[in-house]
């Protein structure tokens, strides 16, 4: 067990800021690949033009190093703490918060965070309980992985939770997910990555729906029954014809990712958290001596 020192928390602060900015500028490689495949597949006249412009926009952001989208989002982090590290969780969380504030200040990011009643905006992209930080633990690892998701509001507003009954079965689960995508329609910037949580308690189910968005496109849930549901749901979502930006077309979603947990015998919870086409996320690894690396792709358990 390595007790980490000040250099570790300083490194966390640095990469928390870097990952935030990178996630806003640099569309992940797997998302680029999926968008390119979608562009080749789409035949709808407006849908095709939308996907051409999406490609042009990604190139523009690359070339000028500017934000892909103006929404700086809700800063959400997932910290995967290696079991080989003795970490002060409170200091870790404070370092992540300082990273968000530094990125906002140094890059003139729009502050998108405000008090829920007074609507007062502290102009820092932080506030009480924001950034949102989730903690998980990685057995055997002697480093910290930090995954950053600046969650855009257009898609976050398309979030759904339903406590179905066990008798509703898989058919009920499918119906709710498809109805949720229909309800989201054009509003969350399709083509979507559809994050789905299955099982758990109401709170865990919703967290799992967001956790599903961390996975690279092309990955599948390791449980074969859940993986089969992902494939089936993607086919059905793309039969709806909502299309890019909801103006019609064959590509409504780039992927459906399902994360599951065991649940209560009298429950059948399902949650949907929509991600927009930019699929934005960034990941970094921090070693106990303060060395850091930005990861091109974060894989669960990897």
């Amino acid at each position, binding site marked *: 067990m390595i007790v980490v020192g000040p250099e570790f928390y300083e490194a966390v602060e640095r990469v928390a800021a870097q990952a935030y900015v990178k996630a806003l500028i640099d569309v992940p490689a797997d998302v680029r690949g999926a968008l390119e495949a979608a562009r080749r597949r789409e035949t709808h006249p*407006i849908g095709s033009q939308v996907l051409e412009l999406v490609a042009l926009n990604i190139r523009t952001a690359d070339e000028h190093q500017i*934000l892909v989208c*103006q929404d700086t989002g809700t800063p959400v982090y997932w910290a995967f703490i290696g079991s080989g590290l003795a970490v002060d969780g409170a200091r870790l969380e404070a370092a992540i918060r300082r990273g968000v504030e530094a990125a906002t200040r140094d890059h003139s990011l729009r502050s998108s965070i405000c008090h829920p009643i007074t609507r007062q905006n502290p102009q820092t992209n932080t506030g009480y309980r924001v950034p949102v930080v989730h903690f998980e633990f990685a057995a055997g690892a002697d480093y910290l992985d930090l995954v950053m998701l600046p969650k855009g509001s257009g898609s976050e507003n398309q979030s759904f939770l339903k406590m179905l009954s066990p008798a509703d079965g898989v058919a009920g689960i499918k119906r709710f997910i498809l109805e949720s995508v*229909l309800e989201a329609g*054009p509003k969350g910037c399709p083509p979507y990555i559809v994050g789905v949580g299955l099982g758990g308690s109401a709170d865990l189910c919703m967290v799992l729906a967001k956790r599903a968005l961390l996975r690279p496109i092309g990955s599948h849930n390791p449980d074969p029954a859940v993986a089969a549901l992902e494939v089936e749901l993607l086919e059905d979502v793309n039969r709806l014809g909502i299309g890019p*930006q909801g103006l*019609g077309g064959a590509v409504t979603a780039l992927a459906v990712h399902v994360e599951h947990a065991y649940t209560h015998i009298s429950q059948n919870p399902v949650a949907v958290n929509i991600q927009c086409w930019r699929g934005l996320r960034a990941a970094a690894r921090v070693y106990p001596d303060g060395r850091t690396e930005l990861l091109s792709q974060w894989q669960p358990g990897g």
Partner: protein
Amino acid sequence: MATWRLTTPLTEAEIRQLQAGDLVFLDGRVVGVRDANLIRIFDQGIEPPIDLSGAAVLHTAPNVRREGDRYVPLSVGTTTSARMDRFTWGLLERYGVRAIIGKGGLYLPESLQAFKQFGGCYLAIVGGAAAWQTLQTEAIEAVYWEDLMPEALWVFRVRDLGPLFVAIDSHGRSLYAEVGAEARRRLGQILGGG
């Protein structure tokens, strides 16, 4: 599917010629509006400090950098219009707005009626494509209500802003309503077919 090049301020005749599915590129001035400043105008009854007749408004709150007494646009994109749906009628009837640029569409029957009755349209920009949109934003000409930052009232000068898809025209057609109705029919088939 025609392509139009328009310059603000927009006239009723210019808007009436647009048909759903057409493409528009826009030059001139675009006024950035969204939740906080529209709540101030319509719910708190405070008159906007600018003339909106013939205006194109954009649902946005940009990323900017302050340089002296002006703002430089760093990222100007588009936010989801549906949250601002209920302000559409007032923008057209009371202030004479001609075009609403947004993403994700408007749905209230009175919004579609307002476009028909007063001669307005909804122009869909590609949501999320702010990098491209920022290059088409030449300058921030004015800003009002800075206390609402970033949800101030912004006046942008734009060149070739587009492509903008005429998604709701002044003749009662809405692409969102058409695509949505078809998607609902297909959902019925999927669920009915097991």
